[in-house]
């Protein structure tokens, strides 16, 4: 921040030191000073910059080809790209229901609600169409490009409300998961999902025929954190799973937030618990450490899917 914009006549150095001391106790924007009754210029500009970063994190699209190349380099199998039925960002934000459906669901009743996207050429799913396009960079697309693997675990990398979070943390998080889970369980090839809500994973998990699904998804950006990733675990994934049947690890954004290794440990504990219990959700608790995850981590950043999580006006 440009300190020269601070009105030094109003905020003397003693007051500044007083507030600086208190700021160690909270990230809140306390002690901003006043110019008349308004916020000082520097604080207005700083706020705008933070809001701009958050908006960019929501709206800048995921570079799918670049992410696919990084994912493929991990050697976990060739990533397939699944699009939701939301055709653009605006529709994604207004219609969470469409973000939960794959663009190429085969059943006639589903396609009836979105004829345009269902017949759009870029969602055509014949394998030769995909190879004909740009085999070097673009991943294969569509649910029909997935094969049933019978693997223990499937992993979806979903853009959610912060494509930036997935771009920044998706691949290292995937690597950490593969490292801790790879010895014990079989893993299906990773899947990349765009314009996606958490429940899109249910269709993907079913198509992959996996026992447990992990959806790595960009969380709604806050003003101070725009790149937070969450992991949603769903045991025996299939369309129609309720939010109460999932477990969430939130606030993954090292170095400030939860780290990859720690998040992977929590995920591994939840996977083990879900397999033992035969289900995921409210009955399944994180037992990976004495110190359970700070509950605040789950509250700071709303889940990627407020509709499923029952956006509560009372908060």
């Amino acid at each position, binding site marked *: 921040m440009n300190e020269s914009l601070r009105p030094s006549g109003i905020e003397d150095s003693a007051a500044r030191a*007083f507030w600086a001391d208190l700021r160690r106790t909270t*990230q*809140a924007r*306390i002690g901003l000073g006043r110019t008349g009754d308004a916020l000082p210029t520097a604080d207005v500009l700083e706020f705008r910059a933070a*809001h701009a970063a958050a908006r960019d994190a929501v709206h800048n699209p995921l570079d799918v080809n670049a992410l696919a190349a990084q994912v493929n380099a991990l050697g976990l199998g060739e990533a397939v790209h699944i699009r939701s039925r939301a055709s653009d960002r605006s529709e994604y934000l207004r*219609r969470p229901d469409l973000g939960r459906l794959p663009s190429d669901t085969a059943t006639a009743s589903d396609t009836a609600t979105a004829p345009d996207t269902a017949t759009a050429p870029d969602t055509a799913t014949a394998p030769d169409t995909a190879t004909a396009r740009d085999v070097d960079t673009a991943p294969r697309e569509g649910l029909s490009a997935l094969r049933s693997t019978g693997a223990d675990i499937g992993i979806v990398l979903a853009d959610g409300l912060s494509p930036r979070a997935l771009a920044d943390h998706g691949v290292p998080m995937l690597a950490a998961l593969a490292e801790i889970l790879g010895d014990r369980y079989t893993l299906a090839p990773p899947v990349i999902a765009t314009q996606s809500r958490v429940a899109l994973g249910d269709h993907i998990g079913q198509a992959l025929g996996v026992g447990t699904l992990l959806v790595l998804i960009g969380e709604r950006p806050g*003003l101070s954190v725009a790149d937070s990733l969450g992991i949603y675990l769903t045991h025996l994934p299939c369309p129609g799973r309720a939010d109460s049947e999932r477990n969430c690890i939130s606030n993954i954004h090292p170095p400030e937030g939860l780290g990859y290794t720690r998040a992977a440990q929590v995920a591994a504990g939840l996977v083990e618990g879900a397999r033992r219990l035969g289900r995921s959700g409210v009955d399944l608790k994180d037992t990976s450490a004495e110190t359970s995850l700070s509950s605040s981590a789950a509250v700071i950043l709303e889940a990627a899917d407020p509709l499923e999580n029952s*956006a509560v006006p009372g*908060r």
Partner: protein
Amino acid sequence: MYHQRIGGATYSFDGLVELLAKATPRRSGDELAGCAAESDAERAAAQWALAEVPLTTFLEYPVVPYETDEVTRLILDTHDRVAFQAISHLTVGGLRDWLLGVAATAEAGHTLAAVSRGLTPEMVAAVSKLMRNQDLIAVAKAVEVRAGFRTTVGLPGTLATRLQPNHPTDDPRGIAAAVLDGLLLGCGDAVIGINPATDSPKATADLLYLLDEVRQRFDIPTQSCVLSHVTTTMGLIEAGAPVDLVFQSIAGTEGANSGFGVNISLLREANEAGRSLRRGTVGDNVMYLETGQGSALSAGAHLGTGGKPVDQQTLETRAYAVARELDPLLVNTVVGFIGPEYLYDGKQIIRAGLEDHCCGKLLGLPMGVDVCYTNHAEADQDDMDNLLTLLGAAGCAFVIAVPGADDVMLGYQSLAYHDALYARKVLGLRPAPEFAAWLDRLGMMGTDGRVLPVPPLSSPLRGLASAS
């Protein structure tokens, strides 16, 4: 079946629920629910048709069935037929004309209060759909609703604030620092209210004791609240914790309230428990209730008569029937918090904020608004400035304020403490009188009612916070 012909086309609406939905100004939540008008022309036609519906129709045809919904039963069973007499002959369109006619008179406050219990939420929601923003402001301004605990909120010429010092881990030092910041900026006269990071009774009790100690130490005439679930608060009342206000989120259908883990009987019990402590000094309104358009849809509890989706604004207004049963101190519509799938952009948020405020006041509630938005909505601080200014003009009882407009716990943007100073200055509004007198005793109140800047180190309040 309602029919309306405009522009050479005839539009038909299958029942009151559909008519209300199609007549609603455009918003994403109704589109998500599948009940919105499909074109501007259809919306205009629905508004014409709605204008001709007699108010008595709303008593005969509930939008949510009486048999299966306790909110409907509350609305119809407590409807005051005597108060309704003065307007019973009117249509929805006639009610708009009547309201604006009354609002222009000197005795508007008295006249509107006299019919309040004769109005049902559905009548009020319906007429609001025909009203322009200026109508919503003019009518709301004419309604006077006051409530009290240690301060009086809702008095003409005042704008109170909830000081919201949230912290991601409920750190008492961080919360105290944010409280100090807000008090130095003249905020906190509606309530000092914390959204706790967890709903555990222990954490809630710790925060209650923290706020109560601060209040007593500095003799602040205000009330505190920790926004836990009502059952948590009731348990803490039993345990002897210093509970001023009892908080709960409420909605406009039995199903949505059930999703919040409450029903009307439990809420009445909570109200009684809060009142039994007799901690108020200037009044005994103890309930702090929050609402917001879209809550019923998000709980999947938005279907009405005939299984049709009820529009979110009508359902929101029905929540006010639950609220007025509880004589609350504060009702806060959290208008932009719920996200763009319910209110997409600044235009929709502003409209909804004005609707909720006007409808709540007409139904007799001390209405406040959380002027706010999330980062995935098409809105920014300019939209919030607009809504705050309009609400100030409309006689809004209180708004929410956080440090620098950034709630670091809930991850959304509300108003800054500074914004309240702005609104009071440009609109000539003052804090609640009891709180203003306290600010004056601390040397923080200018003769013109402006909250004066005070260096923290020369304020006795500085002892409130310390980093160590």
